[in-house]
């Protein structure tokens, strides 16, 4: 999957690496750069970009760059996926 420049930039900032290091092979737990702390930064950055809190299912889905890309390009969470009211 080809990643957009905004996805690459957002991930590079959150994981504190260069843009060249962002590709779809990165996954949580298998790379030192994608630690629990950088994961928190990534989720919070995504929420800031989208202007809303992510639903639990969306948070769980963030396991790759393409998952980040999908979240950035999708519409707001459906009510049935949204978990508790925000």
């Amino acid at each position, binding site marked *: 999957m080809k990643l957009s420049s905004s996805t690459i930039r957002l991930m590079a900032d959150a994981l504190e690496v260069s843009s060249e290091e962002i590709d779809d092979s990165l996954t949580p737990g298998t790379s030192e750069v994608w630690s629990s702390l950088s994961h928190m930064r990534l989720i919070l950055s995504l929420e800031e970009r989208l202007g809303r809190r992510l639903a639990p299912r969306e*948070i769980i889905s963030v396991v790759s760059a393409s998952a980040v890309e999908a979240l950035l390009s999708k519409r707001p969470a459906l009510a049935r996926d949204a978990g508790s009211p925000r």
Partner: protein
Amino acid sequence: MIWSPGDLVEIETVRFLVRSIEREDVTESLLSWMADPEVMTGLNLPERRMSQAQALRWAMGFDNARQFFLLVCDRATGTPIGFFTVTIDSHKTAETAVVIGDRNYWGKNVVMETRAALLDFLFDTLGIYKVIGRPHGRNLSSIYNYNAMGFTCEAILRAQMLSVVDNDRLDQLVYGILAPEWVEKRKGTG
């Protein structure tokens, strides 16, 4: 590992030692974790300034048979940096929770390394069949750890609890991993 109910637990990883708490471990640093709002937010519990006697009663209430209070210590220094609690039911299912109280160790994959060894102990030595954890929906580091370790999010309990931070409703996630799934994960095929 040979272990009998009631025995103290001692599990080594590359960087850490996970071991049963003893009386002399109930120190000011352990009390300070409970009084740290940011630490306790992970469990959605209010910070609490426990007395030494209260903490001792609490910690010594774990029987090392069905309930465990396991300190996570830095192997290089022996210093406790956090703890796991484990509760085992009659169905060979264990529920775990973890606190890393020493902020210097946040973001250093302590939980992944130590929980992996704890899962080995629970599945291989104790014969547990399923391990679960129930983080709240805003405990992002905990969710990260469960996902990265191959747990399945089996349920999202909507608006299950009140947040200690802002009294808003919080979702709770139920994560689980079965013994055969952990075997596959260890082999790198799960």
